[in-house]
């Protein structure tokens, strides 16, 4: 169902515009850095523009990813389709992706980067991969984009990374690959199941979800568990959930600034996105059965990540571990599955993308000047770089969930939602608040405050125009989303409601009449309400 006069191929444009830019760059004669930067910037801005168009045209009452739908045969011999579409969830992440890419490119314009052309190309291709996996509705197409993402990131870390970049990038690649290959087999298996159950050869998520929710697959519990496991593993490695997280710190530490931003900002979110889009709707029973297990892992992750972060001496590593902790909270919210928890989880995905992206951006600013990430090499630089300090403080506060900034909304809703399911989970998860304050404030204190000990910092220069241009939108959003979270929440509530409905049969008590969330709007009710009733 294509909602809007805007061309049905808007999504194709969105996804492949960056590739186009990358191609232009690749065949750009000569080595004019300015031209390269200009082309890359223009491309990313256009892409962002397209995503904004989509946002303007989007009708949030849609709960299923069928906005701007495109459905064409790709490999008709095997029922594989070029099927794209959006719902609030993917749209939110798309906006985040395009925005962060713009920031990254802006920042990279402000810093001295060798072989910048390749750098820009890699990021544009990466953007295509990310956007593709966000809007792909054919599981195989999704898998293709999912894998495509790996390669540019492999180059970004491997070519422009730090000292141990090769180890880091291989680790990143292999960890992710290990997960996704299992998922690959699972996809094939599921397709086979679908074929035998319905006689239709299809990899389309919509078909699968319909069959799954109508129980047409008749999966044996063990089989469903295995399939769910394979899917979940692929996504949880990406998240990354404890104990699969150890690739993240290395990757983050070694990656160049832009790499870290995108990695933390978007790639991790794709893990949770995958859980929401695939693992949970396709295998609700297994999801329900193993939810508690995931929850326990998530809880461990929350405390563990924070605790280890508190022991770090390297700024990036610290932020990386903080991501482990925060994403674990998101996973917990997904597991809890109540309306608030899901909304919170999605909100937190965006929020974390902004705050952590900003944190990495600012660390990158410092790094580009001093070429060290050790906190000990800084200290007392607040007076030297007031603006950076201010922004960093805002990012930090957003990250530790200070009310009025975006971090709080996500945390509050997740915890609230989890509280409805299990007070104990909520209590354990809430310790993250305290621990978060401990390590992040320590970071701020060690880096920016105290006496100016290191002489080298006396010549430290503050954030420059390009970098500020890259950072500003993030800061603005961090504050805006904190004060006015409604637009984002309404954007995703349709998806949330669908997700809950998918889980209804499993845990009816999870779905309550969503009070005042505007779900009484006919758009959703006509489709959702009857089934929801039936479910009770």
């Amino acid at each position, binding site marked *: 169902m294509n909602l809007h006069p805007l061309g049905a191929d808007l999504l194709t444009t969105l996804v492949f515009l960056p590739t186009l830019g990358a191609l232009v760059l690749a065949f750009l004669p000569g080595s004019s850095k300015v031209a390269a930067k200009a082309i890359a910037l223009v491309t990313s801005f256009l892409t962002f523009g397209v995503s904004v168009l989509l946002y303007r045209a989007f009708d949030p009452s849609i709960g299923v990813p069928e906005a701007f739908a495109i459905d064409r045969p790709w490999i008709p011999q095997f029922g594989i389709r070029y099927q794209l579409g959006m719902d609030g969830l993917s749209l939110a992440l798309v906006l985040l992706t395009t925005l962060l890419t713009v920031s990254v490119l802006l920042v990279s314009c402000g810093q001295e980067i060798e072989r910048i052309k390749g750098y820009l190309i890699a990021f544009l291709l990466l953007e295509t991969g990310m956007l593709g996996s966000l809007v792909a509705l054919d599981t195989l197409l999704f*898998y293709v984009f999912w894998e*495509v993402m790996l390669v540019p990131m492999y180059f970004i870390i491997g070519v422009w990374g730090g000292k141990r970049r090769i180890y880091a990038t291989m680790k990143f690649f*292999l960890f992710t690959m290990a997960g996704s290959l299992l998922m690959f087999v699972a996809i*094939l298996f599921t397709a086979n199941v679908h074929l035998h159950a319905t006689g239709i050869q299809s990899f389309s998520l919509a078909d699968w979800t319909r069959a799954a929710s109508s129980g047409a697959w008749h999966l044996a519990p063990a089989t469903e568990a295995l399939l769910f496991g394979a899917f979940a593993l692929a996504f949880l490695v990406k998240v990354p959930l404890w104990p699969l997280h150890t690739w993240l710190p290395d990757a983050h530490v070694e990656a160049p600034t832009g790499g870290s931003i995108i990695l933390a900002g978007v790639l991790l979110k794709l893990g949770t996105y995958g859980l929401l889009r695939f693992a949970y709707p396709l295998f609700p029973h297994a999801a329900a059965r193993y939810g508690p297990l995931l929850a326990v892992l998530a809880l461990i992750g929350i405390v563990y990540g924070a605790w280890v972060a508190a022991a770090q001496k390297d700024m990036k590593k610290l932020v990386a571990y903080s991501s482990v902790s925060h994403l674990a909270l998101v996973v917990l919210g997904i597991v809890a599955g109540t309306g608030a928890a899901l909304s919170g989880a999605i909100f937190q995905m965006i929020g974390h993308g902004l705050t952590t992206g900003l944190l990495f951006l600012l660390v990158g600013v410092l790094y580009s000047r001093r070429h060290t990430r050790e906190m000990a090499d800084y200290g007392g630089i607040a007076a030297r770089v007031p603006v950076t300090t201010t922004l960093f403080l805002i990012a930090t506060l957003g990250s530790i969930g200070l009310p009025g900034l975006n971090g709080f909304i996500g945390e509050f809703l997740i915890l609230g939602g989890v509280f409805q399911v299990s007070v104990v989970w909520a209590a354990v998860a809430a310790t993250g608040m305290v621990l978060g304050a401990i390590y992040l404030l320590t970071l701020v204190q060690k880096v920016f405050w105290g006496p100016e000990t290191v002489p080298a910092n006396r010549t430290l220069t503050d954030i420059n125009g390009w970098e500020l241009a890259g950072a500003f939108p993030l800061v603005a959003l961090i504050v805006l989303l904190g004060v006015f979270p409604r637009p984002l929440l309404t954007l995703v509530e349709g998806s949330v409601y669908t997700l809950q409905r998918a889980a209804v049969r499993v845990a009816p008590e999870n779905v309550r009449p969503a009070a005042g969330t505007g779900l009484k709007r006919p758009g959703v009710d006509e489709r959702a309400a009857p089934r929801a009733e039936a479910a009770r």
Partner: protein
Amino acid sequence: MSGFLHVSGADLACVAPELVLAGFATLILLLDAFARPIRAFFPYVTLLALALANLAGGNVSGLFFGGAVESSGLTRFIELVACGAVALAVLGGAASLARDRRNQGEFYALLLFSAAGTIVMVRGVDLLVVFLGLELMSLSLYVLAAWYRDVPAATEAALKYFLMGALASAFFLYGVATLYGRIGTTRLTALQGFSSSSSFVPFDVLLGAGLLAIVAALSFKIALVPFHGWAPDVYQGMTTPAVTFLSTAPKAAALIVLLRLLHALFPAGLSEPWRPLFAILAAVSILFGNVVALSQRDLKRMLAYSGIAQMGYAAIAVATFTRDAFEGVLVFLAGYLVTNAAAFLTVAGLSGGETEPRTLGDLAGLGRRHPVAASVLSLSMLSLAGIPPTVGFIGKFLVFRAAVDSGLVGLALIGVLGSLVSVGYYLRVVYVLWMKEPVGDVTLVPEDLLSGAAFLLTAALMLAWGLFPRALLHLARGAAITLSGR
């Protein structure tokens, strides 16, 4: 039983490609003997021959020469593969051969003969014809292996390839003899009849041994563990352009013949001892090939072991033995041809000539000096690793899918595990290309028109087939239908 010395036009049309190839090969031999100065044009002549051969092919279909040979989607497929392999070998190799002054006409002639043999091998419906095709192909390759006959490594490669090949031929013949003795025919078409007909021969040990002898011989050509020993040495010692051909078309032909024979014997699908047997062959090859490739530093040896592993994936299709599997494996082979050739293009271009080994280190920093070559090589590595959106992914996808569909999930998992290991060494190449500072100044031979074209062609195919595999799938399905009769 066709008449005495009776050859119809259709018969000739059926084998037209071979005729064209053989004819041009002879022409080149003559030219080389009497008009040496025009050596520089032999590559173009060869390409012309290939083009014509392809035009000549696929005009008729059915059985010809009294049912000894056939023309079908399958032969069409192998024609394309064989000619493609030669084309890429020539495109990529011409420059380096010219540099080493080893661009005698025989090289191209032998390649063409070998291609003809490859085609005959698949075209043959009578096992005798298959054998002759096999021999034609192999003999040419034996000679090509020793092309740099003053280089010890080359002659050693030739020796090993030749002795093993001869041994394999003996086994092949033993198998044919047994089949002939037990069933009474060497015609695949007739075999097809036998199992269904009332006069069914109980599948006793002797017949099994005979079949296995053929399987072993073909596995040797395909280079499946444990019949793989020759591959690394020959790859390393043989001149690279020839390896480009050797590592692709013959393997494809041998695999297809294997499938045909098996399908002739078991039209209803593989029975009990056979399916696990091929599954084991596949699994062992995948694991062994990938693991050992991980420890190689010589590019060609690494590619040899990777080839062993890749053929293991192909063998999964043999174990699966459904039409989808056939289709998948054909796509896989086509993709492997392009991808592997792309890999050898750069290797062939590496300086130092055939006398020096081509180690991983030689690639260091190539990304800076020859971005195009480096990009194509990287692309082919990704394709070999089966990462989308390359044709390598499509091939693996189809093969695994078929396997999973027929319940061979375990095999698929092993395959997946293998690819995980393989990422280790494929990406190592990429790493050396782009992320390692060059040690000495290793450069490519000046990228002439031909190799440039080859780079672009292979890259384009790897991506195009990866993104829009429909056409390829169509071709493969045509061939698969011949294979599976459905």
